[in-house]
């Protein structure tokens, strides 16, 4: 009797073991056969990150792209330009080594937008980062605490995702662009009744940040439901406010930082690790090519800064030993000069390459001695200059020195810093 019981026990044990093995096999096979997203973030030990696209590591070698022709304002619908500027630009970009364009907001005509994305990808192998302003520049100010505002922006964002998520050229989504500054009263300030009741201004800032980052997280979560194939990035000015995002934005995959710090990015890579452990895309950085002090174009100055900035990006890729390992690439601001930028309301000025500066940034120190220290020239940030000379219906593109130096850097990245001047 005891023997029968033992036998039965043994056979049950064998059965359980076999069933477990079978389940494990199904699990492993299931995992293996589950398709990876088209684009995803791979995490390594030590909070090092790599972006994966089509199964391969992908370093974003990007440019911000908004090809407004000379004489046109910011509302110009270049997506529908019959001369197809993206084809001319895409060829030049491909020759340079650009693999990504960053778009701040999709055009109004979905057909045109799809055409641009697919042409860029299919002809030149260039992927597109799609962005949305999240109502940041709406008048009078964005109301991130208002339900109506939130619902409208959410609809716009999710419509964009639904429209373009199946385009093979899409790389990721970026939500916002420096909108966090509005939480800290630095630009486009906003509030809610509840925030107004708080008397401590520092706490008010944190409350606003909590509202904003919670909203962005809600968008990210919704996007993931619709589109599991692309990461969602948070477009943040510097790292300001990210200690709040850490608590309320678990669905954010990437921090897309907008940074203008001259020849480097300081401690931003390691800082991000301790504040909000996510991969970082330097989604907007660069330098202008006009020496506001000497009053003339200086391509060397722009090339110097861009080369140094790319060097630091590469020093902090996951594959580079010794760096932070959390950088996945960058997008230079910008591909081509925009002649409307100095004064967007002066239509006459759109045909003039304005050399007057509106703002100061001592990180770009070569021309900081310009009058009132205003050394940043908005209309001179292009890697390629524009000429009024017509070429196939477009302003002729003239690559600047930075175009060639960055191209050489991408071909043969030299990561050692030049000796510090003493």
């Amino acid at each position, binding site marked *: 009797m005891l023997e029968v019981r033992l036998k039965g026990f043994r056979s049950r044990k064998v059965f359980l073991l076999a069933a477990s093995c079978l389940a494990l096999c199904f699990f492993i096979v299931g995992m293996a056969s589950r398709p990876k997203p088209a684009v995803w973030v791979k995490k390594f030990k030590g909070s090092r990150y790599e972006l994966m696209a089509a199964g391969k590591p992908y370093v974003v070698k990007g440019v911000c792209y908004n090809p407004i022709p000379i004489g046109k304002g910011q509302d110009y619908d270049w997506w529908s330009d019959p001369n197809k500027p993206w084809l001319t630009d895409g060829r030049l970009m491909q020759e340079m080594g650009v693999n990504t364009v960053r778009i701040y907001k999709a055009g109004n005509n979905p057909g045109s937008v799809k055409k641009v994305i697919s042409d860029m990808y299919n002809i030149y192998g260039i992927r597109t980062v799609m962005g949305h302003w999240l109502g940041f520049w709406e008048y009078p100010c964005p109301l991130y605490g208002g339900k109506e505002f939130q619902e409208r922006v959410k609809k716009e964002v999710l419509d964009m995702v639904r429209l373009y998520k199946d385009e093979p050229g899409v790389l990721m989504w970026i939500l916002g662009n420096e909108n966090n500054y509005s939480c800290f009263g630095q630009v486009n300030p906003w509030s809610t009744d509840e925030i107004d009741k708080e008397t*401590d*201004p*520092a706490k008010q*800032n944190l409350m606003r940040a909590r509202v904003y980052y919670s909203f962005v997280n809600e968008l990210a979560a919704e996007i993931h439901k619709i589109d599991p194939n692309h990461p969602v990035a948070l477009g943040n000015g510097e790292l300001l406010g990210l200690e709040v995002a850490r608590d309320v934005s678990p669905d954010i995959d990437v921090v897309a930082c907008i940074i203008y*710090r*001259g020849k*480097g990015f*300081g*401690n931003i890579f*390691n*800082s991000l690790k*301790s*504040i909000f452990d996510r991969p970082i895309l330097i989604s907007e950085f660069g330098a202008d090519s006009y020496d506001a002090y000497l009053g003339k174009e200086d391509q060397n100055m722009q090339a110097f800064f861009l080369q140094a900035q790319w060097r630091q990006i590469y020093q902090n890729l996951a594959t580079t030993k010794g760096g932070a390992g959390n950088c996945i690439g960058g997008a230079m601001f910008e591909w081509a000069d925009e002649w409307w930028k100095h004064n967007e309301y002066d239509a006459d000025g759109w045909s003039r390459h304005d050399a007057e500066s509106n703002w100061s*940034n*001592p*990180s770009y*120190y070569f021309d*900081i001695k310009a009058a009132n220290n205003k050394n940043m020239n908005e209309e001179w940030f292009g890697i390629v200059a524009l000429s009024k000379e017509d070429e196939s219906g477009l302003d002729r593109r003239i690559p600047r020195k930075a175009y060639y130096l960055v191209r050489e850097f991408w071909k043969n990245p030299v990561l050692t810093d030049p000796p*510090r*001047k*003493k």
Partner: protein
Amino acid sequence: MKRMFLVLAVLFLALPTCLLSAETSSETAKEGSSAATLAPKEFIIYNDRNSRDNHYIPSGFMGDVGDIKINDQYMANPHSGATGIEFVYTAKNSQGQGWSGVYWQNPANNWGTRKGGFDLSGMTKLTFWAKGAKGGEVIREFMVGGIKGTYPDTAAVKFGPVELTDTWKQYAINLAGKDLSYISGAFGWVTNSDLNPQGATFYLDDIKFEADPTMKPEDHKVENMPFYVYADRNSITNHFTPSGFMGSYGDVKVDIASNTDPYLGNSCIKMVYTAKAAQGVRWAGVYWQNPPNNWGTVDAGFDLSRAKQLTFWARGEKGGERIEEFKIGGIMGEYSDSDSASIGPVILNKEWTQYTIDLKGKDMSYIIGGFCWVTNADVNPEGATFYLDEIKYE
């Protein structure tokens, strides 16, 4: 007799030739010392008033030049020889600068506009003897090199602050590993009226470069904690200077020697912001910089890697004054701060309150902008008067 005459004749003819030859070789050695090779083990800046070995001239008067008197034949009690150098610094701020100093230059008054530097390669330290008339006189910095201009020095080394004693004491500035191939500003000192409110009389003697093979290049210096930005008006432990005025700088008055109820010690900092938008913008602020007015143009950051936080005490004159931001670091330029951190907005209490800027996770390896505040007229329409004290990294 004939033979003796011949010997005397030869001696008579040969002696002047030998003397001439000796003199010529001596001159050659001197010229050689100012050229490429420097075999000597020392190179004198000041021995005695009339010493032929002296080099360089204490001609580069700086800052409040009317506050400095020099006597280069001080005979009452030199360290050695017959004379030393006496400096009387009156701290009267004659030119409104608040500081004074003197450079030893070659040739005199050469601020890098002319050639004149010596090649001092091989020298590894500069030594000098110093004493104060009473003891307690503070020299903010002694310098070697650092002259800029068309013909800049190849090295710039600073040493200090130094609190002098009332007896002679020797000091050594380590120059090992420095490029001394062209030095036109051999030596200098700088001090200010905050460190010496009653002025200072002090003495220097036996200033010289030396080739000491035991000297080793100094390791990168990581500052010890606590590291004061401000302890008291004339504290030798202070670092950085509130020199970086921003925005409507005409709206800001700084008194770093206020005796109105300091939190600790005999003084605190009083800030008056009038909110009048003197320069047309409705905000203002002040950066504490090293050296003064350094907006990232001078390679002079402190390594404060050991700092975990910056603490300071603050109070408003009425209470309710609002400071938008207290900050450390963040100066960007050719030599940028390695990081930044801030708190704010802060509404000040009428009573002293301690505030902390957390530095955990920050890269504090290179800091030029040691402390900063910024506010604006929108949140202080009537202006703001506030006090700061005991600002320190720890």
